[in-house]
């Protein structure tokens, strides 16, 4: 399935897609997007990279086994829900902080954001696990 064009183009395409997926993840709270859809985009990025250049470079680039990434996502998603216990409010209640980065400019941090990042990691990890495992099979 691997052609010269795809092999050359895949790393760039994949990088762009991952960046775009992070953009989609972060804008999700106010504009169309979010962790789930962002995760799907990143997963397709890795799938394309794998099809184009083989599974080994993808695994090297990921550093961790994708199922471990998914597990970590699950962990921080759970943590973001449990944090509400410290405030004595029900499980998964959203908590918000508005720290000032420089004077006059505020940003928003929240447990739903952490949760969404967790969702993103789970989706990326789980789908990439399946795709890479299948691509590897194919090559044997």
């Amino acid at each position, binding site marked *: 399935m691997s052609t010269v064009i795809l092999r050359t183009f895949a790393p760039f395409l994949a990088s762009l897609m991952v960046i775009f997926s992070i953009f989609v993840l972060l804008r999700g709270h106010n504009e169309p997007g*979010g962790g789930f859809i962002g995760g799907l985009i990143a997963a397709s990025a890795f799938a394309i990279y794998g099809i184009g250049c083989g599974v080994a470079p993808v695994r090297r680039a990921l550093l961790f086994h994708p199922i471990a990434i998914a597990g970590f996502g699950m962990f921080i998603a759970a943590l973001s829900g449990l944090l509400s216990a410290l405030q004595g409010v029900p499980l998964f209640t959203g908590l918000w902080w508005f720290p000032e980065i420089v004077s006059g400019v505020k940003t928003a941090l929240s447990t739903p954001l952490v949760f969404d990042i967790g969702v993103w990691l789970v989706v990326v990890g789980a789908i990439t696990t399946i*795709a890479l495992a299948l691509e590897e099979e194919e090559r044997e």
Partner: protein
Amino acid sequence: MAYAVLAPFFLAIFAPALTQALGHRAGWALAALPAGLFIYFTGFIEPVSSGERFVFTAEWVPSYGVNLSFFVDGLSLVFALLITGIGAFILIYAGGYLKGHEHHGRFFSFLLMFMGSMLGLVLADNVITLFIFWELTSITSFLLIGFDHRREASRRAAIQALVVTGGGGLALLAGLILMAGATGTMEMSEMLSLGNLGDNPLYVPILLLVLGGAFTKSAQVPFHFWLPNAMEAPTPVSAYLHSATMVKAGVYLVMRVQPALGDTILWSIILPAFGGATLLTGVFLGLRQTDLKLMLAYTTVASLGLLIMLTGTSDLVIIEGAVLYLIAHSLFKGGLFMVAGTIDHEAGTRDITRLGGLRAAMPLTFAAAALCALSMAGLPPFFGFIAKEIMYKGLSHVALIPTGLPAADIAAWVLVAVAVIGNAMMLVIGFAVAFKPFLGTRADTPKSAHEGPVMLWIGPVVLSVLGLIAALTAHETGDLFIEPMTAAVSGVPIELDLHLWPSKFDAAVMLSILTIGLGLLIFSVYETARSGMGRIADWVGWGPDKGFDQAVRGIIAFAEEVTGIFQHGELRGYMIVTFGVTFLVLIVPLAMIDGLPAIPAIPDLFVYEWGVLALALAGLVAVFYAKTRLTAIISLGIQGFAVALIFLIFGAPDLSFTQFMVETLSVVILTLVLTRLSLAETDTRGMPRALGDGTIAIGVGAAFTLVLLSVTQQPLDLRLSAFFTEFSQPVAHGRNIVNVILVDFRALDTFGEITVVLVAGLACLAAIRLRKRRPPAAQSHGAELRNDADDAISQTRPLPSAKETVS
């Protein structure tokens, strides 16, 4: 009180570390806890014997009326004293018995956990608390029977005991909940004060379910088989759980509910019938055994049957006899088991045919064995004698007074006869256990026997001497223990005066003489009787123990059969069932309840909207005409993209976005899967099959269309939409309602969904790896040479290729 019950559990955590530090001497240290608890409970003797009852309550789940509540009356106090008192000696004994065992600390831990469970069981007031401790005793018993888990027989016995007693526990739970419903309270102490439930419409189910729990736990026929098998456990367990305490939980329960459920026709038929049958089964099967522990185990079965039979009469004097016998039995049987264990430990065998003449080598053990056996035989001046006297006094009294019903009169005499035969046979087996190994000529044993260390003989000696002291101080024993316990079991306050010697020569004394004479007569021909009984049992050949195995095999075969029908491994069959059921689920409620929707008029669409529809249609046609499977899958993607476009046009950008990605990834993954499956490139289905599958496909599609039409024709409820639109921004700081719902309002749902995604990923990974790890035998010669163990290890090694690539 809750602390007293929970303390053994707490100590169980530290028992292994303590054993590591002190070695087998940890037995002495650990025994301090039950000894302390024993002293704590002795503080209740004085007030309880003067008629007081104590209730301790801590709220647990108040919304369901479940409390961690305990109560102390004559019945629970005697049990608590037996559990802690005998428990202390058992811990010491276990210290000596398992000295040097690699898991000695674990054993102590299990024993302590059992002790806590058993204390909780007998002291529990709330019925749910009672049930939980009841099941805990089953579980800890399972751990203790299976302690020697490398042996097949131990594992089987452990599982068997757990299945039988755990199953009975479930019946008990149902019975207790019904009882709580019938009385309106969850507290046992309040239930008992509400009087007899005999007229309640739920009486029969309550009685049968509660007895189901009691009979399994106390090894009544036909559930008696698990108890002799449980002798696979180390001897301290047999002495403690399977004679003195746990198996008496069923008797405890029956005695506990006697005021509420007893004294009815059903009660006085079921209990004496099953108890009597168990008594006879126990003594006759016990007669044929040559293993000391098995002989004792069968007499324990018999004694439990006797106790159930006596309690079933609901007669005041007979219950008093049962109470006396229960205490006497715990003392002499616990002692005899420990003696059997000591003989096994010191002589290397517990086969009665290979033992003899140990009296000189093991004088203290012999003395303890003799005292216990004399009490078991019911000879004066031992406690067992008083128990038997009172028992006979009650039984003969009932039998001698005509009731006017011939059946009842005959039944009363049958009970007398059963009791006499049972007691005589117990004398035989008790004498055989206690005297055969010690008297006669010195037999050649695997180990050269000598007296055990103090840890091994102190328990049996103290328990056997207690059986003598309790009898010599009969008056005080009666006032302090027997009177309050009999009152608790019968439900009415009583006044009794206990003497060692009977005041006059009455029917009870005659029955006693008859029992002893009969027993000695059989004992004089013991060897002949044993082999004769063995031949009869061999001739019958089948027992519930074999039946248990047959039932288990039957269940497994049935499960395999059912699994084989549904999990036949043919993918097409799975798809037909899945989609067939989907079709029915969609269409049946629609056709039967809601009615088919009206067919809408063709809507007025823009040109580009028609274009999108045409695209979807083109995708479908392409699927239909595709030459290869690969083309078909990609063509299906076209149809999916068209749907995504429709979402986009109708103002659902998030949904559309997701649809695009899901569609893309589905095509990619399906393609990858397809390349791995060794399928023909083209569809090889014949026309009849294609038509059948096509019908199902069209049916499901049509059903979905109808359901969607039906849904859109309902009035639209906008309350939720309105709520989310209104609160999304001010409450959750987000303008994208869809995302706010996903990560904030319904975050728990999303959490569940990502769990599914993660598990699906793991499952796919495992499935793919598993396929890869099992190459056809022809491909790798190495795999054939490796033995099974190596193979198992390489199978379970996690994700090797991941490690390789990371490094």
